[in-house]
């Protein structure tokens, strides 16, 4: 398995990667909570067309769409301490960048959505202002998946995690770490 050169001691890198892992689990749980609130908010709008921005389902939804970009931004700030996770030309990691941009889109959509509902009170799922919520979340999920796979692959590479025992999965990890899995990895 190809070993990437490290700029920090292995033990330090493992500890820092695991701190990133903690943040990822917390932010993943918040994202799961948003998905649950999709149903809660949807059930409210079966009953009331649009009462106000200040219903429990909306507090739940909107507070998460503020917490998620801020949380991932905190993750990006800590990420700078792990050289191997840097993106092209020492920039922010590509997956992290997509995640933050995606959730930032949802954060700004809170305002856009309120402006739309100032004129059109009907809560129709397919209106364009709602597309921005959904597309933002999808972009964020794609980025987060790429980032999580990168962190996990590095933990495997450092010997802190055991890769899948399935030989096909193990082969995929091996190819990804050697940079040969072009179509399925983001460098």
């Amino acid at each position, binding site marked *: 398995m190809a070993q990437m050169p490290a700029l920090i*001691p292995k033990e330090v890198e493992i500890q820092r990667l695991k701190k990133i*892992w903690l943040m990822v689990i917390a932010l993943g*749980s918040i994202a799961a909570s948003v998905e649950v609130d999709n149903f809660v908010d949807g059930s409210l709008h079966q*009953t009331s067309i649009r009462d106000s921005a200040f219903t429990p389902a909306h507090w739940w939804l909107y507070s998460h769409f503020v917490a998620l970009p801020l949380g991932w931004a905190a993750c990006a700030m800590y990420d700078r301490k792990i050289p191997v996770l840097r993106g092209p030309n020492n920039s922010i990691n590509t997956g992290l960048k997509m995640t933050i941009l995606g959730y930032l889109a949802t954060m700004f959509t809170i305002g856009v959505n309120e402006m739309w509902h100032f004129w059109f009170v009907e809560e129709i799922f397919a209106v364009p202002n709602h597309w921005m919520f959904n597309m933002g979340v999808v972009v964020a999920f794609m980025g987060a998946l790429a980032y999580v796979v990168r962190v996990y692959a590095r933990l495997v590479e450092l010997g802190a995690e055991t890769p899948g025992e399935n030989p096909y999965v193990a082969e995929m990890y091996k190819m990804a770490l050697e940079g040969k899995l072009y179509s399925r990895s983001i460098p």
Partner: protein
Amino acid sequence: MTLPKGFGSGGSGGSSSADVERMIGKRVENMTGMITISYLAAWGATFGGTAAGYFYYPWAYPTNSGHFAFIVLTIIEAIGYIFCVKVMQEGSNKNSNGIVAVTIGATAIGTFLISMYVGY
């Protein structure tokens, strides 16, 4: 190995275990207390969030729906909590299975009692 500025022995490139410990700071295997408090806070916030629904908007959020969301989210949070503690401690000689068992057991009983008696 070359260490960042402020670490190591003045440019000669050597790093001691004391330097490594200083770079690490608080080790993740010692964060069980913080993770447990975060889990309990998340669980409490979940109860607060769902309770706000069925106490203030009972016509839109039936108590049973609130409890369903509460139970599903508690399971998600519990899995995350166990995962956090186990991953942080693997490879070390630390073991917090007792704390995890007590915490998960307490929140499971709490979730059961709340789902049976609160909000009806």
